[in-house]
């Protein structure tokens, strides 16, 4: 499945990027997973210090198969989730192109030129489009921000900030369900969000968990795995944890 182009990067750092939405008023949904391709010449080099395997091996707090632990605890995953973690190189999930992954953590629409203050017209939407075609054509712009949660290295997802920020004017694409499942194979991205101070973390976590839950075709085991990760990350902040769990609970 092709990734849909949703925007173009106009500001970037190694922790977040800001993009102009392709569609006015319709940025990718809050909590959406997005990717920015990294060009061949600027592809993220494999780091001798932080190759995917070395991260796992060198981390004394991480088991070599953290999902194995979840699997046992939760009593077995559903089919979709199992496919992704057990069949990494299945036809649905080929190796990933060099890319930086982010989660949409905010969006806004406003005037292109900040010196042009907008005022209400008090007209309905159809009348507005009829009387003021110029407004949607060139006066307004929608932007969205994404916090970076990882990047690819040698075709695999690494939950590390990229060595370089995304290039300006790179296309931002929505991640496919396959990509989302690959990104969320490990729950390390949740730590990045929990520790982020750029957006209301509870909201971003809840929204991205729900988006990933969709990508797993509503496999409840994913929610359980995510919940356990959050319980571990927020063990000293029960109220905040509860707030997230209440938001993502399907009942």
């Amino acid at each position, binding site marked *: 499945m092709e990734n849909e182009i949703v925007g173009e990067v106009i500001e970037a750092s190694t922790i977040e990027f800001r993009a102009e939405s392709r569609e006015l008023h319709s940025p990718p949904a809050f909590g959406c997973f997005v990717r920015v391709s990294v060009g061949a010449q600027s592809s993220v080099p494999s780091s001798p210090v932080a190759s995917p395997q070395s991260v796992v091996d060198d981390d004394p707090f991480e088991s070599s198969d953290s999902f194995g632990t979840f699997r046992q605890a939760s009593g077995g995953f559903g089919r979709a989730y199992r496919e992704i973690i057990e069949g990494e190189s299945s036809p649905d999930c080929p190796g990933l192109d060099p890319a930086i992954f982010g989660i949409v953590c905010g969006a806004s629409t406003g005037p292109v*030129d900040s010196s*042009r203050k907008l*005022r209400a017209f008090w007209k309905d939407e159809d009348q507005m489009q*009829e*009387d*003021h*075609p*110029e407004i949607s*054509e*060139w006066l307004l712009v929608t932007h969205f921000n994404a916090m970076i949660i990882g990047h690819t290295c040698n075709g695999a997802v690494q939950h590390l900030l990229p060595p370089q920020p995304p290039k300006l004017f790179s296309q931002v694409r929505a991640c496919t369900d396959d990509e989302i499942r690959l990104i969320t194979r490990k729950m390390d991205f949740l730590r990045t969000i929990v520790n982020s101070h750029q957006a209301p973390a509870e909201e971003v976590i809840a929204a991205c968990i729900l988006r990933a839950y969709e990508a797993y075709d509503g496999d409840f085991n994913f929610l359980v795995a995510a919940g356990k990760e959050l319980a571990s990350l927020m063990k000293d902040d029960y109220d905040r944890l509860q707030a997230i769990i209440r938001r993502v609970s399907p009942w």
Partner: protein
Amino acid sequence: MLDLSKILSDIDGFGRERAQSAEFLRDELSTANGVISEIAEDPASACRRISDAKTSWLTATFEENPSFAVPAPKLDSAHAVVAIDGSQIFADKHEVALCYLINTSAVTLFYGCGERPIALTRPMLFYKNEDLVQSYGGKETRVDQKMVGFRRMVAEFNELERALPTLEKKGVPAVALMDGSMIYWALQGEPEDYRKWALGEVTRALDTARGFGIPVAAYISDPGARDFVNSLRVMLCDQQIIDCDKCTHKKEDTKPPCEKVGRLKDSSVFGSKLDNGCRTVVFSSKSKILDEYGDHRVQSFYLNAGKEIARIEIPAWVSADRSMLDMVHFVCYDQAQKGRGYPVVLAEAHEHAVVRGSERAFFYETVQRAFIKHGAKITMSMKRLSKGY
């Protein structure tokens, strides 16, 4: 540095003076309305009196009763409006290099036909010797702000000419709007060959518009024109033969009756006479430069655009065609409503054409980089350097 405290009393006096003149204006307006009522009794003979008068100021003549007000016509069909505007970076001898830039814009908005709006801009750089030194009337003149202004005016009409075929192809009735007056009286003082060149460009664009059946109108916000008030002054004149040079009041040092409305502007007179959306009858100007406009002699009317009285100038072939005149009337009023008092299409054309201070600085920075790249010498005046920006 401005020490405002030193002129505070002047500012106070300014305010007081303006408050007093508001009272005078009320009296003058009442006099003006009286004269307009007199004209209404026999507009033809009043117009003859105005045409025959030799005045030191320009007057407006009319074929219909000037106290008539024409309500805004309705237009339910799809239509398009194109607006042309321009802006410039003047040549500045204190800058990196002597050159100037003109940026024109053409914005087209479509209504009722689903076409997407079009906005085009065209920046043009003038740096060659023939751009900076103009030879007209047997003498060479270095470019100055006035010349750049005329060049911009020509560029705007060139832009209009380019925009018209696209507009015609869309197949919807259209109106072209220009910003500011179309009566280029300042050209009067220029050499004949220069005038011919500049007005040739203007009239060629107007010929094209006429050929396509697209009326052209110039929209003047907050107009300062007094042509019609000057006509009222003629009507107030108590001289046997109306000739300002032979006015007996000058010799006798008495106050001439024409001063009874001397402070008024046309827009103040019509402000009290036009309801929202209404326009005046069409006026003709006696400006001498219009003799060189051929078929495009500019006429005008005033319009209550909702939040102000605007002056609309149109070539004679537009006013001669009632459907075109109605179309201009409707579009100007409708555009002003959509733009909260000023035509939205003109506001957009301005926004696309305007060169902001930061863009000007970036332009000169880019010129500087090009000079350095090619090893050209950069000279900056000491004055420019001392300003440290």
